[in-house]
């Protein structure tokens, strides 16, 4: 017997996805997360897997894991007492940031308080210049004075972020040597080592977020390794990364900046796999949980990447699967404004107390309560029976709004859903305009606890005609971890005008990056299979202040590189200027190693009609209608039926509106389409 296990820890639930290598079957499990005792839920889940499916730890051949320890540390501001060393006269880098405020119309708008207060920022004289030359030598005595300052404020760690260190890190490295020699008890991190990019605020804030959480994350991973070993799992745990890949837990201890958004990223990786299986080229992935909806673009079966994704209040500028997070989820609270207009969010009941219908003390009406009132939810338990639904409590909560609005309870519920969905439409609209794509030509891959519940509504609002709900929609991030590649990113700033002379620098730079990349894959990750190396560069027209990551070949000529950039500029911005001089700012490289991946079998076709195991009354478009309740584990390829319908399974409930039809594809995915499409 041999099993591959993917685990993803979320705020409320910890998800397990297990692939049985012998039978090709997928098993899923959710257990409650234990944020106060991270790691315990993993062991609890392992015990439960053994109890339910007789999966013994010794039979685990591959183990991937995504954790929110890092993100939660930032959000709850429970990181270490961190200090920052900057170049003298540039100590305000975190305070000033990029000046712009979150809400420019609000005179009271503020940037979040930095993770390192200005009183814990210390000046280091010494100056590097843009070309990497040294203008003023490092003042080593000042470093010693600064270390004394760190001790005086009780600091336990230091981030060193000096000007132009992306070009020449020797001052940063020397500071680290001095700290390690003089104060070995202090944790210390170099900004160029975390991610060596030009733009001092972006590089510094990325290193500060990493430094703030790294000792915590490292401690967690050490405990996890020990716990798994004790439980009898011999496979080295792999950690999912923000770039959609995985790395060893050992690497995660020093590279935690790379794993902070791993949960959302691996969900998108899972969605990409589902899209490929369902023969969908272009899709939007829609992951809705209790407090937020994460939407990502899948283009030709691949996710899109970006930088500047938010960790709590702070942007982090390392390559990350690009996800737009919308502050609306199943727990978003509905309310009536002083003008008598119904609104939904941004307040959320979250997982505690949760929607009123959960009966955990919540009394305010949420989107989930609206689905209970309209009959789509509350027909079975949620989350493996961990949470039960109390329909009366949901009705009572919605009634508090129905009265001031002079509407029936069911009309109020439907209005809440429609308003919430129009809010999601607003955010998705911005995203599709930013990318210049048309959702009407795309499919919606819906997952997460509330994604399949809202998918038909969202698709209707966006004029999308096709929805795919995977077999295990509630644990897709855990599934994504199982199919992720071992993956790392590398960058080098060159800042060159592209021409025949500078091309040598480009090719030499790529050769160096390739050496680093292969060393990482072979030596650090111990991966022996085939390595894939992808070349790209951040390029722009001279005079532009933003770059486009352009895919290049291993030995592209200058003309090839220019052509690739013009084409990419044309694709993204709908124009290109073939006569304008082109600059290369950064060389980039991605290295990939493909671990053995689960190959999901086609399921045997159904032998007859899909049978609703019972009927329910559901309310949509102003009418109560009959709808079948189907059990997901009884649906098989070839089954088809029409909405309204409810499909229940352990990890989520799928709501199908009237006007949609459902078919089951060969892999068991629900394909929900606009009737007559």
């Amino acid at each position: 017997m041999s099993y591959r296990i993917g685990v993803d820890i979320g705020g409320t639930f910890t998800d397990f996805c297990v692939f049985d290598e012998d039978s090709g079957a997928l098993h899923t499990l959710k257990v409650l997360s234990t944020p106060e005792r991270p790691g315990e839920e993993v062991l609890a889940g392992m015990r439960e897997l053994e109890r339910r499916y007789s999966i013994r730890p010794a039979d685990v051949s591959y183990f991937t894991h995504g954790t929110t320890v890092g993100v939660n540390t930032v959000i709850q501001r429970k990181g270490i007492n961190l200090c920052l060393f900057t170049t003298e006269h540039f100590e305000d880098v975190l305070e000033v940031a990029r000046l712009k405020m979150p809400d420019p119309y609000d005179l009271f708008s503020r940037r979040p308080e930095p993770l390192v207060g200005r009183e814990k920022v210390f000046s280091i004289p010494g100056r590097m210049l843009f070309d990497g030359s040294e203008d003023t030598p490092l003042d080593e005595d000042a470093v010693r004075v600064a270390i004394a300052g760190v001790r005086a404020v009780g600091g336990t760690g230091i981030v060193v972020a000096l000007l132009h260190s992306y070009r020449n890190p020797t001052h940063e490295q020397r500071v680290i040597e001095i700290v390690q020699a003089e104060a070995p008890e202090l944790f210390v991190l170099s900004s160029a080592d975390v991610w060596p990019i030009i733009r001092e605020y972006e590089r510094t804030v990325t290193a500060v977020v990493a430094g703030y959480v790294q000792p915590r994350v490292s401690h967690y991973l050490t405990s996890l390794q020990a716990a798994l070993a004790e439980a009898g799992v011999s496979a080295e745990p792999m950690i999912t990364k923000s770039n959609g890949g995985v790395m060893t837990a050992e690497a995660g201890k020093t590279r935690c900046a790379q794993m902070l958004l791993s949960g959302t990223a691996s969900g998108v990786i899972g969605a990409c796999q589902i899209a490929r299986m369902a023969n969908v080229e272009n899709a939007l992935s829609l992951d809705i949980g209790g407090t937020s909806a994460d939407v990502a673009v899948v283009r030709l079966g691949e996710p899109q990447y970006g930088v500047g994704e938010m960790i709590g209040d702070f942007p982090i500028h390392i390559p990350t699967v690009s996800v737009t997070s919308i502050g609306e989820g199943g727990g978003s609270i509905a309310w009536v404004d002083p003008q008598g207009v119904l609104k939904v969010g941004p307040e959320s009941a979250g997982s505690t107390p949760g929607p009123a219908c959960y009966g955990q003390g919540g009394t305010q009406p949420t989107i989930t309560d609206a689905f209970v009132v309209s009959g789509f939810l509350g027909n079975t338990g949620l989350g493996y029976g961990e949470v039960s639904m109390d329909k009366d409590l949901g009705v009572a909560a919605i009634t508090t709004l129905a009265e001031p609005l002079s509407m029936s309870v069911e009309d109020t519920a439907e209005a809440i859903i429609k308003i919430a969905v129009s809010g999601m439409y607003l955010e998705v609209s911005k995203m599709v305009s930013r990318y210049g794509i048309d959702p009407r030509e795309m499919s919606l891959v819906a997952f997460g606890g509330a994604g399949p519940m809202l998918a038909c509504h969202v698709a209707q609002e966006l004029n999308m005609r096709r929805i795919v709900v995977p077999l295990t929609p509630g644990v897709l991030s855990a599934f994504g971890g199982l199919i992720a590649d071992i993956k790392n990113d590398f960058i080098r700033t060159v800042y060159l005008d592209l021409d025949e002379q500078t091309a040598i620098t480009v090719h030499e730079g790529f050769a160096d990056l390739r050496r680093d990349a292969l060393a990482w894959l072979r030596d650090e990750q111990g991966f022996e299979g085939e390595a894939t190396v992808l070349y790209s560069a951040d390029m722009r027209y001279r005079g532009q202040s933003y770059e486009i990551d352009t895919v290049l070949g291993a030995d592209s000529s200058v003309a090839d590189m220019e052509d690739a950039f013009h084409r990419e500029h044309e694709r993204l911005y709908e124009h290109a200027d073939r006569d304008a001089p082109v600059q290369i700012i950064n060389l980039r490289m991605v290295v990939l190693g493909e671990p053995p991946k689960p190959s999901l079998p086609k399921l045997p076709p159904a032998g007859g009609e899909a049978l609703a195991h019972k009927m329910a009354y559901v309310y949509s478009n102003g009418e109560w209608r009959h709808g079948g309740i189907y059990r997901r584990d009884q649906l098989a390829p070839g089954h088809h039926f029409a909405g309204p319908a409810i499909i229940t399974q352990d990890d989520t409930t799928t709501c199908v509106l009237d006007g949609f039809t459902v078919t089951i594809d060969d892999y068991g995915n629900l394909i929900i389409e606009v009737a007559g499409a």
Partner: protein
Amino acid sequence: MAIDSVTLEILKNHCRAAAESMAFTLYRTAHSTFVKETEDFTTGLTTPDGETFATPTDLGATWFVALNYKNVIDLIDHYDEGDICLTNDPYSGYVCTHSPDMHIWKPVFHEGEIICFVVGHIHNTDVGGAVPASLSRTLSEVHQEGIRIPPAKILEQGVINDDVVSILLANVRMPEQNWGDLKAQIAAMNTGERRVHEMIAKFGVETFKEGIGDLLDYAERQARTIVADLPDGDYVFNDYMDEDVANGYPCRIAMKMTIDGDELLFDFTGSDPQIEGSVNIPTGGEVRHVLMMIGLIYVLYSLDTRLFLNAGIARICRCILPTGTIVNPKFPAAVGLRTLSVQRLQAIIFGAFVQAAPDRLPASPASGGPIMNVNAIDNATGRRVVASIDPITGGAGGNPWQDGTDGSGANSSFLKNTPVEVNEAEVPIRILRYGLAPDSGGPGKHRGGLATVLHFLSQAPNTKVTARNRDRTRFTAWGVRGGRAGAPSYFLLNPGKTNEVNLGNTDILTIDPGDEVLVASGGAGGWGDPLERDPGAVLLDVQRGFVSLDAALRDYGVVITDGAVDMTATSDFRASRSDEGSGEFFDYGSGRIEFDHLWTDGNYAALTELLRGLPVHWRFFVKHRVFEAMDVLDAAQRLGDGSEVRTIFADVIARYPQLKQAAPQ
């Protein structure tokens, strides 16, 4: 309300989505770096009458929420489907407010009827004229500020009007950029039109037509609710710009706000005559001109961030804007640098409102810092570099709950800086310091936000530095309720050296290798008595380097010994100073106090009243002659009741018999 409130809320989200999508389309496809860097553009949707009912809030400038396109819509005699119109003329309908802003609008038809307009603007880097980038304080006629296209069709039934395009492009310095950006604007209009058609299909044309009116009514009702909460009364507030023209005299904008129930009246009588320079604010006397509404929208939104942003808000307000003044100049007064005066105007509106809501609004934001540009030849490449290196913004005023934000905030929140590392990579300068200026925030129970400061060293000969919108070297950001004014801004050449020069409000400068430039914005005003500030907060400010030990003692009465607050000494010291406060609601700072000594309210009111009786083209001239005479007035003759101004004015008039021939206006 005509349509039900649930549909209204859904329609609202769809309308905003349309406006945001237009903005993202424009931003994505714009050619010029200027548009991407500054986000100085807008998009929106208006009713057939031109009232903006939806605008984006994620991207773009914050100024044009209340823009009404009616005047320019009406200047086109008929519309066909597929038409797109534009104008950048500040004197055709007062929609465009300076020549670089290219405004564009497209009617959206449904079955032959105009249902709404999709609209927007881009600030072009250059539209020709006397100087590169078309803007300078030295210009005095709008003709010098570039080509002006009066309202015209750029597309007729979907076909480009090549005549208009070629005239425009022949007159600008970087035609490819203007053309590229214009194409992006057209793309944004088409995105908006498509979204409107989708909304009509979804909601039905009647619901859409009624709904967009309801969205205006909705914002109006929200605004009325906010204003009704404020006490009725007259609230007077005046403030000055340091100079009306380079090395000129102060320039006053005077305002009396009347709150009457849920309605507002802004009366600008008493403001200075129009300027022989380019800081005039072109309103045409429109009672709800968009530039007069910016401060209002900031205030109402800050009082209640649930406010839906559209032109419905402006319906609760009317303005009195006397002709021939800075707030309503007559053609062809130059208007290019109205940014400077409009920023001051915003803070004046804040000053009027804070009297009505002293426990709900902040002190004055910093301002006065320039947008810094450098134009030089790069030593390494031999190429000329023209770069915007940083906006020197300064912080927000202290407020009833917290300190003002440092370095940026309030009405400068939309600006972004350029990283030090990028500036050094692109521009032949070495940056010696960039950050916050200690002791610049106005002391207060809640401190005013600190100024930003930039110090750099030139690396190339003949480097041209421009510092647009310099102000607040003399008249500083006011504090409120016992809070003190922020520090003045400054602009120095070679600070601390034997060849140091105080550049004052200079906005253009040529420097050579080895020259250093030090520039800072003003600091923001404080809120509440600084002697009531939590000593722990003062200590933290000292530890952070935001307040010096000296200032802790002097401004806050906090005694810090060996890195800790000496609580006993602090209470004793504070008690001994408790009668120190002026008891005045506002603190305007020493520059203003000194000025007010000579230019009392009585004197300045007399001046503006007398000037009003003169022909417009004489007013600025006579103002300067009166100021000259006031400056040398014998101390004994200073009465402050206006009489000395009347005497001087009579003398000046007597000196110029030509004036008698000029017809009064």
